[in-house]
């Protein structure tokens, strides 16, 4: 438990949370390791957790009928994976696969929901962090969709 507490206290995502709240988070947390190519979760499955990547990398993939799974984002150390556990229908919208051996902290959603219901200050703090994360990922997705390297304005090169 102490090891988990120290790990969480050192993460940017949890910065600003009081020790009491970080301690509460450890209640539903556990260390999990995935081998390269091992699946963390699959699209459409029930979303019962989120993960904090400690080392290694995870590919987020989506599969279209008749096509291979396409990686649209990779996550690395210090990054948080998964927000589908926060809102209905509580199902993953994509799949996650470890690219390398990947060490994570796994947070159990039912335990978290319970903690957040009982302690709305913690609930609000977590929603704030996930809202910021979602905005950041949305901005990144927009940049990706813009195909910014396709134009001419690229560093005095042509």
């Amino acid at each position, binding site marked *: 438990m102490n090891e988990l507490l120290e790990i969480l206290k050192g993460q940017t995502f949890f910065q600003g949370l009081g020790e009491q709240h970080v301690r509460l988070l450890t209640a539903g947390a556990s260390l999990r390791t995935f081998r390269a190519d091992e699946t963390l979760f699959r699209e459409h499955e029930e979303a019962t957790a989120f993960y904090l990547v400690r080392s290694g990398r995870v590919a987020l993939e989506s599969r279209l009928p008749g096509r291979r799974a396409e990686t649209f984002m990779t996550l690395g150390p210090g990054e948080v994976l998964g927000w589908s556990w926060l809102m209905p229908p509580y199902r993953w919208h994509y799949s996650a696969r470890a690219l390398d051996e990947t060490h994570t902290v796994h947070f159990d959603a039912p335990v978290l929901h319970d903690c957040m219901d009982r302690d709305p200050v913690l609930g609000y703090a977590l929603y704030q962090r996930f809202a910021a994360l979602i905005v950041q990922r949305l901005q990144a997705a927009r940049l990706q969709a*813009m195909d910014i390297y396709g134009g001419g304005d690229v560093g005095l090169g042509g």
Partner: protein
Amino acid sequence: MSVSVAEMSVHEPMAPVPWRILEVRREVADGEVFTWRLRPESGDAPEARPGQFNMLYLFGVGEVAISVSAMGEDGSLVHTIRAVGSVTRTMQGLKAGDVVGVRGPFGSAWPVAEAEGRDLVLAAGGIGLAPLRPVIHGVLARREAFGRVLICYGARSPRDLIFRDELAQWQARDDLDVRVTVDRGTADWRGDVGVVTQLIDRGGFDGRNAVAMVCGPEVMMRFSALSLHRRGVAPQRTFVSMERSMRCALGFCGHCQIGPHFVCRDGPVFPYPVMEPAFRVHEL
């Protein structure tokens, strides 16, 4: 009396000097991005500082501003060019031995000395890696003078990555943290997928004691600056390289003007706070 290329650059800055292409290297499979090693027909290339540019003149076609992408060891200079307009597309067809006109070098340089004793974050998007490459060469020549050095490089797809051999060499070093990402992966790509700002968000540097240099499309530079500032890098220690349509390269014609600044003369490298207001103006 013969006049050196350096003297010509100072006394006749509008007069292109003939330089010969010594070597052409394709950076991507279709040759859309290519690198020239060039040398003046007489004498050595004038000294260029990292971040500066030359005006490359294709006789009878036109002139373009291209950053120096490396200093040659034999009196030559290196330029990396992307074929995106009529001049650069014609340049794509030139071979070793052909002659072009060169004016320069012009413009401001990356403040490499300011990064000494600090962590250094270099964020490059697309061909924006080219103007930062001389910084990397300079840092590697005096590696002990800098703290942690992080290179974040984003490209459209794996086939668009430039300087692949050097990237692999840099990635193999223990004293550089080189992170590469692409917007769209391929079936055989095992690297990162996503925008370059994510690589900055992963940290690994002391933002409060870091200098950042960013080069790429403007939208990429704007979001990279946001990520850097979130990580504690001071705006005044964040530098960007601007691209505008340069004509005279001397601050006379106004083609490259952004507000009170002439990109060719006052830039292309600016402290971020100087350019930040321009990033918020539509269609500037």
